[in-house]
């Protein structure tokens, strides 16, 4: 189930990036959403969850962005944030939407700041803000769809998850 969610998200992100023009309000970041969706399937196994986050980040690094360890580190941080938020919030589709939104904002801010610190990007507040706003809509929709689909599958096949 976990592998299925991650691979589908990575593939869909890549495919949609070709179909949807850049700069529209539908920029996919499904790999981050997949980290939110898979968390409930790691019952009392946070270390394994963080490992999965790191591996997903590394795959994302190598296949899509030609970098190494950059997304891996950020995905691990995102994993820790998801873990912390899930302590207080229960697992339902509204909370999934909120967690997705928070994590996408955090991901974009952290990655932009790191790239700015190492001199790769020049800081432009408007650009950062517009990118965040353009990334939220599609990913929140995807998180809800993914939550409903995986919830039905897990109920059908009696896969245990945190509620």
């Amino acid at each position, binding site marked *: 189930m976990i592998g299925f969610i991650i691979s589908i998200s990575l*593939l869909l*992100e*890549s*495919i949609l*990036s*070709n*179909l949807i*023009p*850049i*700069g*529209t309000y539908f*920029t*996919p*970041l499904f790999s981050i959403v997949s980290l939110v969706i898979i968390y409930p399937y790691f019952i009392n196994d946070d270390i394994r969850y963080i490992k999965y986050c790191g591996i997903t980040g590394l*795959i*994302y*690094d*190598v*296949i*899509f*962005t*030609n*970098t*190494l*360890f*950059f*997304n891996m*580190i950020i995905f691990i941080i995102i994993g820790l944030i998801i873990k912390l938020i899930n302590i207080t919030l229960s697992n339902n589709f509204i909370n999934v939407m909120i967690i997705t939104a928070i994590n996408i904002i955090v991901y*974009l801010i952290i*990655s*932009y700041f*790191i*790239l700015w*610190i*190492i*001199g*790769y*990007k*020049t800081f*432009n507040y*408007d*650009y950062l803000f517009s*990118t965040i706003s353009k*990334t939220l809509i599609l990913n929140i929709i995807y998180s809800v769809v993914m939550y409903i689909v995986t919830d039905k599958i897990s109920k059908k096949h009696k896969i245990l998850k945190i509620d």
Partner: protein
Amino acid sequence: MVKTTKIYYNVCGDYMRRRNRIKKQWIVLIFLAVVIGLGIIYNTVNDKRSLTKIEGLIKDTGLFVNKIVYSPIKLVKKKIVENREKQEMYDKYQELKNKSNNYDLLEAKKEELEFQLKEMQKILNLNNTLNKESYLNATVINRNVGIWYDTITIDKGSKNGIKVDMPVIVNEGLIGKITKVSNFNSAVKLLTSDEITDKISVKIKNNNDYILGLLVNYDLSNKVFIVEGIDQNTDIKEGSVVTTTGLGDYFPSGIIVGKVKQVRTDNFDLAKIVEVKSDVDFNKINYVTVLKREVIEE
């Protein structure tokens, strides 16, 4: 009683001091970890870094799977676009039919110009110019994955003869250069990228003359390229065509970059800054051409 209190305070003081020392050590350790982490990221994000064999293999495999999954969707998309283009082509055909009478005249003129160019090259002994390119068409297989990188991935790699730093164009003009190559895929850094490490030498057509300048960066808010290094007393008309000069290591001469949108002076009134608008829609790049530059040898 006093003695006991003294001992108690001493023990407490020692404990607090030890705790502060450990705290400081942790701060130093975290700081070092952050610095080392940033150093590693700087090295791996850097475009000058070439892909390792394992990275190349994983990348090729991942993108191959991606290509297979994407192919049926691509086919449907292609059919839709084809139908739309068919209609447009029919309209253009009607228009061109009317213009076809002038074709013979233009053909003769072109032959004459080609002959003149060859003769002039012979005279000027320009046998090693960077004008001969072999073109390689490629399809874009990834675009905005990794939003901040301004990079696209194409389906041609070192097996197709692609090398790092080769220029990449589309019909409307220059779009970037190759930065990373694996066996079957390559990454193209777009000109709109923030990372300004290589300034591009460009020329602006001004009547029958050319003005040289340097393309230094891309203005994200106005979506224009900024060309600097132009004398204050030079007159540049809006709409003038901007092309590459061939000076420098990467881009050959004569590739269109865009047209002059606006000319202004810098903050010190010493030089002119030219804003160049490209016809390329950097948000919608599906097919590109890589210029596999070759040096003409006699």
